[in-house]
């Protein structure tokens, strides 16, 4: 294989529409996983902070497991192992979202837990003192503040999930990496196509963190710097 810029650019230009088609797949996987991670992670963080010893133990175990096992192992475990054992037929796309979402929920629960714990305890007391149930106090007083504090952590989490989503190509999800791989195998221009894939990821992570930065400014509490 020779290293030729013209051949490389030709492969890139010809493959671009097909590879860009993978951006949507990647985005749906990433946003889906982040959203699932947010919902589950929020519940986990609440269980971890406000739950009894049993709940805390269980959430701790969950977090420990999903933070400790490699993504690829989990993808294979769920797709080839669990689905087979349960006689379920789900798409690799769906399984990828779920597995990334489960992992993200473990990380997001820790981000949120830190955020919740940094809110002065007196506010929960004050909420109770005006007759709020704990559920109301958490919903209307604690979480709105914790979510704001968690945005920088989420920004980080977004880039990690974005990058990790490339691994789902191993299940055959037609995302950016899988498509770049496909074109590379056909044209033998691996260098240029992987460079292209890397570049697309770079733009996606950059755009996402910028967007979250804007969100952070938008929802910032007036006069408040923490």
């Amino acid at each position: 294989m020779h290293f030729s810029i013209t051949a490389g650019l030709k492969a890139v230009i010809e493959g671009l529409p097909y590879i860009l088609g993978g951006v949507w797949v990647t985005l749906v996987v990433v946003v889906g996983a982040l959203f699932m991670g947010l919902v589950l992670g929020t519940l986990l963080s609440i269980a971890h902070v406000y739950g009894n010893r049993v709940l805390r133990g269980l959430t701790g175990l969950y977090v420990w497991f999903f933070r400790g096992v490699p993504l690829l192992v989990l993808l294979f475990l769920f797709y080839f192992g669990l689905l087979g054992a349960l006689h379920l037929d789900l798409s690799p796309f769906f399984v990828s979202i779920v597995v990334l979402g489960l992992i993200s929920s473990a990380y997001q629960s820790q981000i949120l837990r830190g955020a919740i714990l940094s809110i002065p305890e007196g506010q929960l007391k004050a909420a109770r003192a005006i007759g709020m149930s704990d559920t109301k106090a958490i919903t209307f007083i604690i979480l709105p503040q914790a979510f704001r504090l968690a945005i920088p952590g989420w920004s980080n989490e977004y880039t990690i999930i974005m990058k990790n989503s490339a691994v789902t190509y191993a299940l055959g999800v037609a995302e950016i990496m899988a498509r770049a791989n496909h074109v590379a195998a056909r044209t033998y221009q691996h260098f240029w196509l992987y460079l292209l894939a890397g570049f697309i990821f770079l733009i996606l992570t950059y755009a996402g963190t910028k967007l979250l930065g804007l969100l952070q400014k938008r929802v910032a509490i007036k006069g408040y710097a923490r």
Partner: protein
Amino acid sequence: MKDSAMPANVPVLRIENIKKRFGDKEILKGVSFELNRGDIKAIIGPSGGGKSTLLHCINFLTLFDEGHVYLNGIEIDHANKRELYAYRQKVGMIFQDFNLFDHLSALQNVQIGLVRVKKIPKAEARERAVAELERVGLKEHMNKYPAELSGGQKQRVSIARALAMDPEVMLLDEPTSALDPELVGEVHSVIQKLAAGGMTMILVTHEIGFAGSLAKEIMFMDEGVIVEKGPPRKILYEASQARTREFCDKIIHFHHREDDQE
């Protein structure tokens, strides 16, 4: 008047033999007293004596080990959540460090209990919240966030927040001790206004001058018991217990020295 519906002889709030331990330390060793409508009682005493713990127990923010709490003669069962939440609205609590909700404006701080707890429609709740803020002299600051308010203003917002719930009793835990001296007056005058309006109150404070001018009874609390209680003049200057005398002497001297410096 509200109290026409109540038998005149039933205290608004009565607590009976409250005991609380943290670990193997007994913090409250059986505290009892009662408040009739319009009563204002002050609690003074050395740091660590259990004053804050007592107020927290009255509101079930801290669960006590033994004892009973009655509102208008009816014992409160904290295990019954509905009853507990209704009770807490009736017993307003003011904290030393305000505990405003940081993400909400002054107006929203007062409004949120009306909307989320009392389920009053937003527009109506807003009107009520504005009125409460006006009562504490903060109407023109209602759109400011806690971080934009002074300590005195924050404490007044927290008083408005409690008043919005229509409390029958207010528990105030050193409401001005976190404030710069020049901000104490504005909070004191709000409390005085409440007193003039007939609010039933328990005031924990180190400001004996203020306590003496406001309360009809002062209770001296130390090591988890109410050592003695009586009219301000008696407790502050002619206490029968040595412990009370020692504490009051110290704090009176301290205040005089502060006054000299001014």
